[in-house]
């Protein structure tokens, strides 16, 4: 293990076209902290938002906030903003299939709802009079 650290430079020189820089892409600390505080802020927003009655928009608003948070994590913490685009394509393509799965299952769900999820456990409407 005591090999002299002599041809580190050779190795870099051999990189040639890749330049002498490392392939590592350390993220600056300010960026990490900025992303973290943005995420914390959005968490506070989403908790606060849950106290307001937005009716049917509730779920949409929470999902939009969650997606913004997820995008921040993906782009910066997971390096996708600086990564090889192929990795991003792989990851995003899974969401295409998730969307297909979700949409088609949900459109089907009402078709058989009576058989597996009765609204009341037992039909208790007493036929009297």
């Amino acid at each position: 293990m005591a090999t002299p650290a002599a041809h580190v430079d050779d190795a870099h020189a051999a990189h040639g076209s890749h330049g002498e820089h490392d392939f590592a892409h350390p993220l600056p600390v300010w960026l990490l902290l900025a992303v973290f505080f943005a995420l914390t802020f959005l968490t506070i927003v989403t908790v606060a938002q849950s106290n307001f009655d937005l009716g049917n928009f509730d779920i949409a608003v929470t999902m939009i906030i969650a997606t913004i948070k997820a995008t921040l994590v993906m782009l910066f913490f997971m390096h996708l903003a600086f990564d090889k685009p192929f990795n991003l394509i792989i990851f995003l393509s899974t969401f295409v299939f998730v969307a297909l799965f979700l949409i088609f299952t949900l459109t089907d769900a009402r078709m058989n709802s009576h058989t597996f999820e009765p609204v009341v456990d037992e039909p208790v409407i007493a036929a009297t009079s």
Partner: protein
Amino acid sequence: MATTEAAHSDVHVGHGHDADGHDHDHPPFLAHHFDTPEQQFDSGKLGMWIFLGTEVLFFSGMFVAYAIFRMLRPDVFEGCSQFLNTKLGAINTGVLLFSSLTMAWAVRCAQIEEHKKCAGFIAATLSCAMVFLGVKSIEYSHKWELGLLPPKWYSFIEGAPHPEGISKYLLYMALPFAIGLVGLVIWLIKSILTGNRFAVSVAKPLIVVFAFFFVGIGLGMILESGESHAEHGEAHAHADDHASDHVSDAAHASPAAGTQSDPLGDSSAIAASTTLAAPLIDRLAVDQANSGIRDELRAKQQQAELGGSTVVAGREGIAGPIDHVSSEINTRSQAGVFFGIYYVMTGIHAIHILAGIGVLIWLLVRTIRLDFNRHYFGPVDYVGLYWHIVDLIWIYLFPLLYLIR
């Protein structure tokens, strides 16, 4: 530092073309089927992204189950979400976000060869994971005591008193961590005695990490106890009182008015089965002699019967949001299903946290061993990616489960 310098020294980037697979003139971290460290890193990263893709698809099944049941019974989700402690969920979200920060920072430190800081950030990430699990175990044990369980075991009784003292389920969940902590302390003492400095430097942070599980339990207990007498208790009150507001006002007020108050049979059963009739019964309770209301009620009842023994259609026809939690949902096939989904989603997420703890401990040992350098930080990066996706899933789980108003 000698090892890392030696490691850099052997990066023979230009020698790739003569790779017959037996060229041992490469640094120890570079597998001989790769030409360059960069190629090795990119291959590993590609593999990791494919794995993360399978993770997304794996979790999507549970999210679809969630979406179906929530679409079918939004009232069940709204009602049962009251039982989830938002404060604990929010704390856990913050803890996980912070652990994501420390993880990303650890990757940065591995890349710029700040080994001490890297080990520190990995230990911080591990500690956050432990706090998360500690808080989670408080949540779980509290619910198990109350009988808020998946359908097969669901046995929640409304108005039941909150269990006092330490739950036996909590002891079961804390036991492995306690054993781990004791084992680590013994290992540390043994390593100190035998003079194994590497083992000492590994055992020390791990002891702190395992101790943080109990910090999480303490944090959870403080928040849970504060909550269960205030907001959480209120949630129960909401679930119970609101639920029976209509029903009991009608059903309990009418016996006071006289025993003949049930001209249509069990009015509470009717009220329970069709919320449409509830206001009518209210009015009937006030004015027994009003035969018009009675006829209207009878008509509603017959309509409900014609529409099938369930009131799916009727429910969908009701305009406006559901403004109270119905006691009807306190059954196995309704609240039970919600808790089934809750336990599967959060439980599998917790298993991912446990797996993450496993790989992070491995990473901590390797970091302390100075395995990583600016040409070889792949494992730190890949574990970081895994950790972030666990965080990503929680980002969606938290609002979907805890924040249904």
